[in-house]
């Protein structure tokens, strides 16, 4: 008798678990807490879109808020956002494309577009964009032109995100480097070194960070390379061009900060963030996307664009663009819904600016709302000086090869000359295949 009861109870439990598991998968996220509008009424008429992003930094929350607002502002389209860490995002996206299961809308960095356009993985947007009413003149010129492949538009730029400098307000006050409420910005490399020495002597803090174990360490070198009149690859993108006096000068400049121990060593993104938020760093070069996060952490800081310290003004930048990947489930109705969603995001990119991003829409940057931000207007300047990584499909491999050799220089395992020579050999090998 007891055994029969035990068997019945076990069966009932198993059945209950299985049934609850089966129920939730079909409808689009009925469990998502963010949707406020009742879905059941117009569920049949709603177009459902999937939207993938790599925004796991501080800016991800701001994008999610935008999607939530879009969903609750109308009931014809429902967008489901999915975010992956940047390091794994392109792996996930490409494998989904291979299976025909790509999302309806995907963010792709402008520098990574060639990888997809050479394989015809993105829908051309010319007609859709014109009909949706995008005004080419309202977009920042470089990213608007840069989202075209083979004469066809494949993406709508969302923002421009260059490297900028963050200044710790307390440290700069203590070092006496504040004038008229703004930090003293050096106008040459020699001036920078003097300023850093002042910070070290007067406050004992690390004057400036070099992210030896993270991508900012590469992007800073990249900016100085172009400021010295150099370039990463030849114009035809077939050979390396960075092993030049400009490249060596740029790396030697970074090494001066490393060798003077002006920076904590071996910083990666977690430890750089921890050191910055703990107030241990005077000047931190990093991407604009951190601004919103630092504000939320309650930090007091200044921002300026990356200063021109050598012959030319230049600063590393990339852009997020919105694309329509080809996939099996695509149809004209979904494509129309997708472009409507993209237009809404673009029109409302003042919300995106809250994260620290500079919208690609000139009218948004010129608006009073944008000018009312504390930090954004101080660095949304000199957008003509931005330099994007070269548009080669092998960019990821090329940059990883250079990045590794830079690490060797930072770790004093090779001289700057040897590091760039080794990187040049590797890059030429990669580009030749």
């Amino acid at each position, binding site marked *: 008798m007891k055994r029969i009861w035990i068997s019945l109870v076990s069966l009932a439990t198993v059945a209950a678990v299985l049934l609850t598991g089966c129920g939730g998968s079909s409808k689009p996220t009925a469990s998502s807490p963010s949707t406020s509008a009742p879905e059941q009424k117009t569920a049949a008429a709603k177009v459902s879109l999937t939207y993938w992003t790599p925004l796991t930094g501080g800016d991800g929350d701001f994008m999610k808020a935008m999607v939530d607002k879009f969903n609750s502002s109308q009931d014809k389209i429902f967008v489901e956002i999915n975010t992956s860490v940047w*390091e794994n995002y*392109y*792996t996930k996206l*490409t*494998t989904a*494309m*291979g299976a025909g299961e790509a999302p309806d809308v995907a963010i792709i960095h402008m520098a990574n577009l060639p*990888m*997809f356009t050479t*394989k*015809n*993985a993105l829908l051309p947007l010319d007609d859709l964009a014109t009909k949706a009413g995008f005004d080419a003149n309202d977009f920042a010129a470089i990213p608007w032109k840069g989202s075209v492949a083979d004469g066809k538009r494949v993406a709508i730029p969302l923002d421009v995100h260059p490297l900028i400098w963050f200044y710790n307000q307390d440290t700069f006050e203590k070092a006496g480097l504040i004038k008229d409420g703004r930090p003293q910005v050096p106008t040459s490399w020699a001036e920078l070194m003097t300023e850093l020495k002042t910070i070290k002597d007067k406050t004992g803090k690390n004057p400036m960070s070099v992210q*030896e*174990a993270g991508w900012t360490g590469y992007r800073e070198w990249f900016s100085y390379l172009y400021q010295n009149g150099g370039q990463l690859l030849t114009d035809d993108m077939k050979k390396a061009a960075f092993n030049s006096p400009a490249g060596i000068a740029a790396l030697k400049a970074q090494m001066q900060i490393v060798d003077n121990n002006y920076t*904590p*060593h*071996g*910083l*990666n993104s*977690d*430890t750089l963030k*921890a*050191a910055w938020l703990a107030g241990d760093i005077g000047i931190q070069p990093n991407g604009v996307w951190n601004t919103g996060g630092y504000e939320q952490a309650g930090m007091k800081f200044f921002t300026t664009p990356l200063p021109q310290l050598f012959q030319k003004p230049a600063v590393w930048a990339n852009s997020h663009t919105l694309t329509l990947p080809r996939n099996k489930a695509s149809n004209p109705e979904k494509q129309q819904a997708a472009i409507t969603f993209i237009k809404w995001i673009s029109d409302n990119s003042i919300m995106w600016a809250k994260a620290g991003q500079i919208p690609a829409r000139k009218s948004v940057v010129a608006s009073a709302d944008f000018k009312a931000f504390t930090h954004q207007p101080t660095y949304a300047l000199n957008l003509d000086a931005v330099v994007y990584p070269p548009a080669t499909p*092998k960019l*990821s*491999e090329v940059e*990883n090869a250079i990045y*590794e*050799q830079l*690490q*060797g220089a930072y*770790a004093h*395992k090779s001289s700057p000359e040897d590091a760039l020579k080794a990187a040049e050999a590797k890059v030429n090998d990669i580009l030749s295949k």
Partner: protein
Amino acid sequence: MKQGRPFLRSSTREAISGYLFALPYLLFFCMFVVYPVFHGFWLSLHDFNVIDNSSTWMGLANYQTALHDETFWKSLRNTAYFTVLSAPLLVLAGLLLAMGVNREFKLKGLFRLIFFSPHVLSISVVGSLWVWMLQQKYGIIAQALGALGWHNPPNFLFTPTWAMPAVVVTTVWWTVGFNMTMFLAGLQDISQTLYEAAAIDGASAWQQFRNVTLPGLRRVMLFVGVQQVIASFQIFGQVFIMTQGGPYGSTRVVIQYIYENAFKYFKTGYASAMAYLVFLVILILSVIQLRLQPDQGAD
């Protein structure tokens, strides 16, 4: 009960029910192990693009490129370095811990639990945990070393010389419990009467260890040793989470390099060729190890 001849002999029926029990796992095994093995070989002979599924016949070109790839050889050397550091350490530490917890003392159950429990954690947890513990300024290892008098220790995970040893320490902490359990089972299999006889003959503790324990553990030692070398050679998770192959490529083990080529640069054919080369290396290593062990008859 029916008295006529059954349709099938009982041995056949047993065989059929055996296969039916094995069928679900067999299906998964074929789908996720057997098929990828053959598909991987096919991939290694082509240049395959993940985005549009196009492929170009390469013949053995991928293998040739790999054999001339300086980074591939460096990653093999890094993997060998890791194996040489970690495998003997893991076997020895497993044995010592097992001998320790095999004794009779009050809290032996608790200690067995403590030494085994890291093994229960997933690699992501272990990796993330140790990244923070090894942090130069804020990590507890640095604090502990400072208390012992070694102030300003190097930034372990981001100094090329120290990064691999740091990964080794993490790995030993994580997996020694498994070896300990294997050795514990082996130790308990050795009959107590052998130790008593040796003690009566006047053998010291060391002599008992050499002449009773070690011979008794030979089979377990062989299993743990081979298994450890194979596992060490395939290290990937710790490197992927803690150092991503850096700094300056010092921890790039061969599986990490294969992963980079397959999933970061999308050169799946090239990555598959390297994977097959690694398979060959591990196979040769295992055969050598098995040959080096003297034959054991039943004890």
